[in-house]
């Protein structure tokens, strides 16, 4: 959980995660059917099945069954709950079965550096030109050479409108209202997101590698410590509804999800900027079924498929053609698709190289003080 793991709603919540794990079991039960001789008698079983390693909330039955109906390929899905856990498994050799993996932006960059990813054959992909400009040439993977962006979102502050006055607008709010927040604020259990937010509040980059800036952020975070109830990426949902918490750092996807259940809950992207995350699809070098992997990518690049997935699963898509197909209500949801001027201030979390150790050291210090 300390890992910079991020993305939509449910995937970090334990209960939903276990539900997802169960559905993983259910999906795994497809295996005997995959090996069923009733399928392609000539081909090997692996051409008829596609193993995907992903965050838990990017699938539902409808998506999988429509893919199988269209291509005849069955999906075997496993889920992970942090990029680092996924990487550790892949590096330990446990990822050989997967033809598609869903790493986040900075992890794509890391996996490229570790030479784990196949360079994509663009002639086999249709619809990359429909992506929003922002994702045509992302920093983490220039020209999308190894990855196809599939979902994105932001980090911000979640709060209960009726209990909090004034409403937060920027990170500075946390320090200004510290006495009000006393022990009723949660920040992520993720050193980069938390330190990044503090860096932003000081006017620095989310991805600063300057030791002086990082130290300044550490000192400012230490000031805020009495107000912090705990560092948790997903444990704030129930407690913000009950009023035990007043403000929580949260992912846009979690906030949107919660707001549908509790209308009093609001989400704001801090004015000085925040983090903008992207989850992607990649093909590992060890992929047993690259054909199937391209089929899956093309399936999700089709605007109508992407739009239907967004409507059901409530994540933001970088696919302009899919956005055009959405209902106006979803398309104009400012939390799901923030205005360009807000996004312009947000940064993607990027690897910070040797400074990682420094961040980690301050993190150990702040969480053990």
């Amino acid at each position, binding site marked *: 959980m300390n890992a*910079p793991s991020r993305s939509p709603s449910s995937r970090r919540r334990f209960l939903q995660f276990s539900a997802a794990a169960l559905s993983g079991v259910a999906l795994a039960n497809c295996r005997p059917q995959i090996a069923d001789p009733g399928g392609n008698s000539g081909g090997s079983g692996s051409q008829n099945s596609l193993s995907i390693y992903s965050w838990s909330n990017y699938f539902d039955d409808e998506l999988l069954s429509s893919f199988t109906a269209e291509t005849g390929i069955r999906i075997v899905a496993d889920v992970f709950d942090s990029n*680092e856990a996924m990487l550790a498994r892949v590096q330990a050799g446990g990822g050989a079965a997967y033809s598609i993996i869903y790493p986040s932006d900075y992890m794509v960059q890391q996996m490229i550096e570790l030479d784990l990813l196949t360079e994509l054959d663009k002639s086999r992909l249709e619809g990359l030109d429909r992506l929003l400009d922002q994702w045509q040439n992302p920093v983490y993977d220039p020209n999308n050479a190894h990855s196809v962006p599939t979902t994105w979102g932001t980090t911000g502050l979640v709060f209960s409108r009726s209990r909090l006055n004034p409403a937060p607008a920027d990170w500075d709010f946390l320090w200004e209202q510290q006495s009000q927040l006393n022990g009723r604020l949660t920040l992520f*259990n993720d*050193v980069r997101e938390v330190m990044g937010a503090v860096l932003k509040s000081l006017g620095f980059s989310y991805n600063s590698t300057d030791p002086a800036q990082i130290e300044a952020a550490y000192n400012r975070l230490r000031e805020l410590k009495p107000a912090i109830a705990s560092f948790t990426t997903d444990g704030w949902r129930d407690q913000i509804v009950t009023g035990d918490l007043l403000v929580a750092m949260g992912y846009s996807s979690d906030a949107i999800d919660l707001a549908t259940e509790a209308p009093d809950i609001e989400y704001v992207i801090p004015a000085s900027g925040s983090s903008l995350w992207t989850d992607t699809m990649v093909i590992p070098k060890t992929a047993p079924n690259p054909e199937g992997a391209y089929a899956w990518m093309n399936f999700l690049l089709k605007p109508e498929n992407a739009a239907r997935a967004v409507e059901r699963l409530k994540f933001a898509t970088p696919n302009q053609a899919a956005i055009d197909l959405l209902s106006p209500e979803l398309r104009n949801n400012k939390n799901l698709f923030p205005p360009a001027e807000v996004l312009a201030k947000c940064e993607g979390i990027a690897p910070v190289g040797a400074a990682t150790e420094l961040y*980690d050291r301050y993190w150990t210090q702040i*969480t053990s*003080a």
Partner: protein
Amino acid sequence: MAVSPSSASTPVQTSSPSIANRLSRLVQPLLLLAPAGVWLLLLLVIPTLMILNISLIPGLRPGEIPGAYGLGNFLRIFDPINLRVMGRSLYFAIGTTIICLLLGFPVAYWIALLSPPRWRNLLLVAFVLPLWTSSLLRDYAWITILRPTGVLNSLLGAIGLPPQSLLNTGTAVIIGLSYSFLPYMVLILYASLEKLDRRLLEAAADLGANARQAFLKVTVPQTLPGIAAGSLLVFIISLGDFIAPELLGGASSMTIARLIYNQFLGATRNWGFGSALSMILILAVSLAIALLLKYGDRDIESY
């Protein structure tokens, strides 16, 4: 003639089973121990040696070329930041052990000595029942109980007492850990108390000891190995637990288990340092077990 072969064959016959005996005496333990031995070798000894190997390479990260051997990882453990993390882990573990002992002994004593015999097994099962649920679930339950508007404060409010803010404190962690591991303590103490020689208690009473003296001078010394074993087990498992500190401990909840986790599955991916921390944990636990074997067993034999 009829005698000599038989007399000649007799020593042969007696010697051949004795060889077979000796052989079987050699083979039998081998056969019996082999599965467990192979298991231990493959899944405990070799992995531990691998961890030791990794721990001796400073700053080793997967996917990078390993540097030279050195003690850098172990030296880093003595950084005050890391020592403080270990101090907190020890505080949680020792606190939990003491609470479990204080709460567990009366319960085990009552079940073993005072409760109706036919109910004993049922009582034990009832006590162990919480272990059947996931520890994650148990700690989530404690969040519901301890949070500011939770069950505890509703109850306190109803009887006119001031609300307590326990969630996200060290106290909450020790409550969660103690609740989780109390059944282990009770089981072990029960096993020890059940064997208590009650004639000694009668003798103590006959010789004029009052209840308190009899308890301190007869019951406690006899159950000392059980107390040691139970305390040690609770100490070891609470030292390695990170669910309770993570969920209940609030903003200052870093423990050694979590620190190790961060080295392997966190952003730094410093497997070398993580392995060194693991080795320290393994060493501490082994030391504790060695102490138990040395002092615990001797007492058992003296009965």
